[in-house]
């Protein structure tokens, strides 16, 4: 099947050594088979005479001697000029087949000579008078085996001529081993290219861990050098590389479209022009015979760049073996796209996934989850849901790396499993950072209500209309959403047995959101005419609330970086705490100023009440955020002392 695909790709040159090899084997077989016909004739003529034993010859030629024995011993004459023998028809068919194989191989290397041989073969077949099954005339036998000059062409003569042609072709295409590749007909310049490719293959060959494959053949034909690799020996998974003076062209076929895309991406450091990913069909493949064809061309007349490219191709092929199997396993733990990200990383870092599969694949991960975190990651739960996307991807990279290292260095499998478990535990301890992401989201929601309030006050100041009812409605929606987020956060905190301070932090932001929502509600009822000096102070209050919400988000984001981070992360988190406390002071001062303005001024009751209530609600929000700041500081200091 593979050679059928290669032929379909128009790359028959590369197949010639294989064809010659097969034809020489056919030559051996046909000689044994003709001998069997002779042995049968002899037995038929003289059943009591000593036969000749062809057992060893059969074995050497790959023919089963057990089926040949009854043929010879069962041979008998009919009417003196015909022989019959059990299985004779099959034997003669095999003889025609052998000769056809030989002629086709000659044709692949020398079209004219091959065609002439095929014509002769047709003529010889045509001249044979049809007989009953398992029957042949003795004259016909003579015509097959004989070499008489006068009696026209014979099959045996044709076989001999073909053998001669094959030997000539074989000499011209003498196969040799170059750096592990079967090569023939190379020119001096081709050798470094093949060697570069093989250097790559050898660099990563070890990573296939016992899987068959990666056999390479290379041949020079006309203006180009063709290199072919078997990859993992599956049908329709073919790579053929044509090296010409000014370009290297890679032709790649695959039944898996994502793997074909993965393959092309492995060469992103080279300016390769890719084209295709065409859907093709070939008879006899699984999946309805569909496969994808992609062609990449690297235009280069620079030998160094050419060899680097060839080396990279050679080194990349092992990562295609069992790729889809590995991807399917990874997909049960992380998203489809992240699975490809992990496999891409493993290929780029020369780690691969075969080691992972050898060590148990999915079971390897499942047992780490089972041992390390029986309660914290549920059965069938994806790792990216439990650990966060980045951590899950990071962990699986470690799994692949540790597996490959263990098998390469011959380390103990037990030790590898322990290392994998330890890494999972390390990531679980970092889950706090993931929970802090939830707080960032909450702080963002608080900021949005505060910004809406600020906009409302600004419009009042400008004396422009503002849809305050929709502000209140929006604030209410946000508050409800924040509630849900907080409930979910508490559940996660419990599940992961996380730092209880995080729970308090979550509660504090939620309180701040509640206060801001209250402020938005009051704003929907507040009269339009408010004294400008009161509005100025309300604007300050809103600014303090925005600044507090921003400091909360920035501070918590910095705190999340502390475990793996640098001093600046701690400094940023503590600076945010200062801003939170500063915002509370500003809020407090503005609220007092408003109280003074209202109580000293001449306000209508409704206006006075709403302005005061509004100011108090926002001030309480900044107060909650300052409380958040104190908790954040406690957490930062606790992180530092661990």
């Amino acid at each position: 099947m593979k050679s059928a695909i290669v032929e379909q790709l128009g790359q028959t040159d590369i197949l010639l050594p294989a064809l010659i090899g097969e034809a020489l084997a056919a030559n051996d077989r046909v000689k044994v088979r003709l001998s069997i016909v002779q042995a049968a004739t002899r037995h038929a003529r003289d059943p009591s005479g000593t036969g000749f034993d062809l057992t060893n010859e059969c074995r050497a030629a790959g023919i089963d001697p057990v089926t040949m024995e009854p043929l010879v011993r069962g041979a008998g004459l009919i009417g003196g000029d015909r022989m019959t023998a059990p299985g004779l028809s099959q034997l003669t068919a095999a003889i025609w087949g052998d000769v056809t194989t030989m002629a086709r191989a000659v044709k692949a290397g020398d079209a004219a000579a091959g065609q002439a041989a095929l014509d002769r073969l047709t003529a010889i077949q045509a001249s044979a008078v049809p007989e009953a099954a398992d029957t042949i005339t003795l004259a016909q036998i003579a015509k097959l085996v004989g070499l008489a000059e006068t009696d026209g062409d014979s099959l045996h003569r044709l076989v001999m001529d073909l053998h001669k042609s094959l030997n000539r072709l074989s000499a011209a295409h003498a196969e040799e081993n170059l750096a592990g590749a079967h090569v023939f007909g190379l020119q001096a310049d081709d050798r470094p290219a093949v060697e570069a490719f093989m250097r790559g293959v050898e660099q990563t060959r070890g990573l296939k861990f016992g899987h068959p494959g990666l056999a390479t053949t290379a041949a020079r034909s006309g203006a180009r050098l063709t290199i072919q690799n078997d990859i993992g020996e599956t049908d329709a998974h073919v790579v053929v590389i044509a090296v010409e003076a000014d370009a290297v062209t890679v032709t790649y076929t695959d039944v898996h479209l994502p793997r074909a895309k993965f393959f092309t991406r492995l060469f992103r450091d080279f300016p390769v022009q890719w084209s295709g990913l065409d859907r093709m069909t070939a008879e006899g493949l699984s999946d309805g015979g569909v496969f994808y064809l992609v062609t990449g061309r690297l235009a280069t007349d620079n030998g160094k760049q050419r060899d680097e490219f060839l080396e990279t191709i050679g080194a990349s092929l092992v990562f295609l073996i069992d790729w889809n199997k590995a991807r399917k396993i990874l997909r049960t733990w992380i998203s489809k796209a992240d699975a490809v990200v992990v496999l891409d990383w493993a290929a780029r870092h020369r780690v691969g996934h075969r080691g992972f599969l050898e060590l148990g694949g999915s079971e390897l991960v499942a047992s780490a989850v089972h041992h390390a975190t029986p309660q914290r990651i549920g059965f069938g739960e994806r790792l990216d849901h439990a650990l966060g996307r980045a951590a899950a991807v990071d962990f699986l990279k470690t799994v692949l790396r540790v597996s490959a290292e263990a098998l390469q260095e011959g380390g103990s499998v037990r030790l590898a499993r322990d290392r994998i478990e330890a890494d999972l535990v390390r990531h679980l301890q970092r889950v706090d950072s993931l929970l802090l992401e939830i707080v960032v989201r909450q702080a963002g929601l608080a900021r949005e209500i505060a910004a809406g309030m600020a906009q409302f006050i600004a419009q009042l100041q400008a004396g422009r209309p503002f849809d305050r009812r929709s502000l209140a409605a929006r604030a209410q929606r946000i508050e409800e959403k924040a509630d849900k987020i907080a409930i979910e956060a508490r559940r996660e905190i419990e599940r992961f047995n996380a730092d209880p301070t995080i729970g308090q932090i979550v509660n504090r932001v939620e309180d701040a959101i509640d206060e801001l929502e209250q402020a938005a509600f009051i704003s929907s009822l507040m009269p339009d005419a408010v004294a400008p000096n009161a509005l100025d102070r309300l604007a300050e209050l809103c600014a303090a609330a925005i600044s507090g919400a921003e400091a909360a988000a920035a501070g918590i984001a910095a705190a999340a970086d502390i475990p793996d981070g640098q001093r600046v992360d701690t400094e940023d988190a503590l600076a945010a705490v200062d801003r939170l406390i500063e915002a509370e002071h500003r809020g407090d001062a503005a609220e007092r100023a408003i109280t003074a303005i209202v109580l000293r001024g001449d306000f209508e009751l409704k206006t006075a009440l709403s302005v005061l209530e509004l100011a108090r609600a926002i001030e309480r929000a900044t107060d909650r955020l300052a409380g958040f700041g104190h908790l954040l500081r406690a957490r930062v200091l606790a992180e530092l002392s661990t």
Partner: protein
Amino acid sequence: MQIVHIADGSTERHSAETIGAKAANLARMAAAGLPVPPAFVLPIRLCKAIVDGDRHAQQKLVEGLTEGIAFLESSTGRSFGSRRQPLLVSVRSGAARSMPGMLDTVLDVGCTLAAVHGLVRMTGHPRFAWDCRRRFLESYGSVVLGIDRTKFTHRLAELVAAEGVASEQELDVEAVERLTKSYQQMIEDEDFVLPDEPMEQIEAAARAVYRSWTSDRARTYRQLAHLESLHGTAVTVQAMVFGNRGLDSGAGVAFSRDPSTGAARPVIDVLFDSQGEDVVSGSRTPETEQAIDRSAPAISAQLRQTLARLEHEFGDVQDVEFTIESGKLWMLQTRDAKRTPRAALRFAIDFVNEGLLTPRQALVRLNDLDFSKLTRKRLAESYEPVARGTGASAGIAVGRACFDSESAERIAAGGDPVMLVRPDTSTADVAGFAIAAGIVTAIGGRTAHAALVARQMGKPCVVGCTALAVDVAGHRAGISGADLKEGDWLTIDGEAGTIYLGQCKVSIEQPDAELAEIERWRSEVPAN
């Protein structure tokens, strides 16, 4: 390879032939001391080689980007892909002559997940951080990966509906974060791997921008605009400034004078808490100069001063893009404004009166002016408009309604004038523009690409007509309750922004006073 640095304190001039008109003008603005975010330019001469896949060019591209990013990092104090102080960049096209909207741009490049975290640390504004990521995914997904942009807009519309809000602006932080994740999922469902390495993002983006030179719409535009002699586009990489950081931020487009009527007053379109693409795409209706006067008077004054300075510097009416980030004005682009023939005449006369041009220079500038187009049509009677929009390109047009370029071609082939009626316009409609007598759109502002192109072609155009609902697939539209079918007659006044049902009577006027002034110059300036 020599990349050109912009806003590095140098006052060197660069030619549009080398680095593209946009970058050359940007460098000139920076040299004049105007606030321009730092940038660097990969030259036009690399374009063809990159499109052809030349390996030396690819190597130079990578080297140029590496060097340029180092320059941007040192001048902004931020670093590419950082979790603390991330640098985000725009990757923009720019040919030697302006081809508005025809080439591609990738925005917010470098906005990896780590950078989103970094933006939160920098600003404390998570919605803004996710909004940057959303914009990055949209532009990278559509321009670099070739995913149909409408797939993104559909996701957005679905979420806006599900959240029960009026527009994308009202989505809260949680919703925007969810949206970016759904964008990412969509990209990955198409089997693309989204690079999370910023250098990988920028290389792909730069290649895609170079490649956009050969897109069908760019070729068509060059043909229509007789720009076939151009060699390619440059790629400008500029530190992002953010108009989407809050209500004290925004993005806009301004003309130093009215490009439609020629009146000597700036025309400013601005969208607060938005990025530039929201303004020029015509997908939202911007606010005008009154809005910026009201909410940011200091910025408004600075912008007007800048526009006047640019007119002096470039000696012509300018069309600029600007961004306001947290109360600071940044200039992102300036170019000679496209204008109607009538505005061209008015500008020439005003520039001479203001001493910016001599009559002789003004006459040279009017050399290409088609004086036959100066005649101005007016509605002969006072009609009641069926609807109003924003006048985007002055003039009266009468034509039969059609709702896409194909039916426009069909009706035009029958010999009748055509009125192109669209929900919005994208530059993909250029073919329809060329044959239309006039253009009407339901959304978009005066500075949308469509309006720019319409003005350049001298076609009357009304945009932002909110009473119009177009059903392109159904070949019909509703306008203020009236039913409009394909082939129905419409009249528009592209200056007043009014739309009338049926064929209105039209009378013709000429700017006699201005023409007399030109005649006077001609008699005074000796011919040579």
